[in-house]
């Protein structure tokens, strides 16, 4: 009897920024994500739980990442911010429909 066993390793990278993501520092986050994309990573969990403030420049970084990740067959899942006001903004802009959302990073990882 021949049994074929193949191992598939899916690499998912969790990125958890701590603090505000805004026009002043969005480029830093974008730079780090670009490095990961260039290394071939295309599955991301972006953990926003410790992000107290996210502006439209930060949102632009998330959408850019999503586009590039999906282009190469990957995806981006978001972890909800703890801050209720920030959650509402993600709902207002329908980011919660464009991205798969999770309450925790573990739940996001398991949803891949």
């Amino acid at each position: 009897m021949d049994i074929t066993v193949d191992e598939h390793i899916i690499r998912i990278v969790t990125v958890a920024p701590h603090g505000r993501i805004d026009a002043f520092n969005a480029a830093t986050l974008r730079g780090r994500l670009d490095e990961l994309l260039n290394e071939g990573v295309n599955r991301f969990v972006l953990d926003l739980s410790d992000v107290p403030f996210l502006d439209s420049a930060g949102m632009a970084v998330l959408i850019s990442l999503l586009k590039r990740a999906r282009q190469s067959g990957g995806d981006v899942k978001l972890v909800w911010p703890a801050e209720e006001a920030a959650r509402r903004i993600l709902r207002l802009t329908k980011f919660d429909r464009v991205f798969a959302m999770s309450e925790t990073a573990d739940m996001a990882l398991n949803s891949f």
Partner: protein
Amino acid sequence: MTEVDTVRLDLPATHKYLNVVGACIGELLERVEGLHEPTVLTYNIQLAVHEICANIVDHAYGEKSPAGRIGITFTLQPVTRTMHVDLHDTGAAFDAERYQEPDLDAAQVRGYGLFLVKELMDDVLYETEANGNHWRLTKQL
């Protein structure tokens, strides 16, 4: 809140110091009693004013006018329980005719700024003045 209170802030048009703007708004609203959902209200005003400032940095001044400034006046009207935020810059004008609302169903990279401002504030006014641009945001407290 028994008198009309105004606080003015004038800062370089750079993303670097926009954190000062949000902090001022937070402290001013600390002093207003009886706010409904103060944390969310404060966040919303902070975000809206921040987006107008970021647009002034990126679009009104762009790469061209690094020495430009943003003048902001915060006014608290106790009787009507209204907050006005007036922003002045001397950069390029905003072309309201060419402005397009974002299509929220097609994820897009840019274009959420003014959408958020309009959603989060009760009133948004833009006008060109002799010496530049004037944005006035109004929020019922």
